[in-house]
């Protein structure tokens, strides 16, 4: 056997194995995420198609939970949690994405529209020890890292909640909510593409 010829085929084989692994790993992870979501959300009244959970989650349902299609719960350093108490409703529209560490808790009603995005460590709960009031998040809303939505707020369509904001009042559509307590400013004032 010629020792000088060996390295070339071996490296090319290794490269092909590596390529194969890289092409298959996402599909395997996707399959696991879909299966995990089925198991985690087995107590929910409605679960749409292609709901995926890429990491561990804390799930508790004593009320009524409805999940839309194509939801993604990203895994990471902290599990996300979905809690729906007795007699409460938690409704999530289609194509919504959640990063890790998101905490959703419903005592009466939390409604989330379609195509929303929730960054890591967002907290949404409709009871805070003093008040209990339903929360509504309309379509295409983006809530950035660490924001907290207080009971009774309504976030309008296409609005953005800035990182770390505490939202205590309603946010109109096409608005940026920022600060503690959050103030609302027109998205046209701060985004280069209107509504982007």
């Amino acid at each position, binding site marked *: 056997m010629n020792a000088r010829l060996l390295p070339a085929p071996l490296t090319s084989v290794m490269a092909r194995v590596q390529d194969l692994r890289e092409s298959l790993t996402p599909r395997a992870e996707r399959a696991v995420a879909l299966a995990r979501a089925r198991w985690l959300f087995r107590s929910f009244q409605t679960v749409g198609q292609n709901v995926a959970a890429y990491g561990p989650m804390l799930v508790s349902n004593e009320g009524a939970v409805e999940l839309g299609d194509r939801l993604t719960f990203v895994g990471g350093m902290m599990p996300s949690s979905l809690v729906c108490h007795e007699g409460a409703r938690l409704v999530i529209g289609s194509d919504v994405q959640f990063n890790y560490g998101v905490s959703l808790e419903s005592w009466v009603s939390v409604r989330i529209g379609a195509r929303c995005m929730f960054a890591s460590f967002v907290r949404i709960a409709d009871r805070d020890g003093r008040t209990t009031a339903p929360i509504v998040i309309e379509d295409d809303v983006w809530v950035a890292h660490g924001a907290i939505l207080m009971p009774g707020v309504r976030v309008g369509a296409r609005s953005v909640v*800035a990182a770390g904001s505490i939202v205590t009042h309603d946010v109109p559509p096409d*608005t*940026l909510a*920022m*600060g503690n307590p959050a*103030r*609302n*400013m*027109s998205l*046209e*004032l*701060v*985004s*280069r593409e209107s509504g982007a």
Partner: protein
Amino acid sequence: MSTRERIRGFIVDTFFVDDFSDDDSFLRKGLIDSTGMMELVAFLEQDFGIKLEDRELVPENLDSLSRVVAFVEKKQQLSRAS
């Protein structure tokens, strides 16, 4: 110091920009980002003793130095009148 000079001074000192004209859009020229806009609003409220409503935080009022000056002067007149 005039209103215009005070506001321009704040923008120059806070956002490290000085090459802009009175009518340049803060947004399109990339002079002030969203957090900066919040700082500008807080500065206007503190230094000029006015209160900005959320619905007033729109480009027509705040997206260039001349617009901000006109807006602040209008608000001051209104608060003096009432």
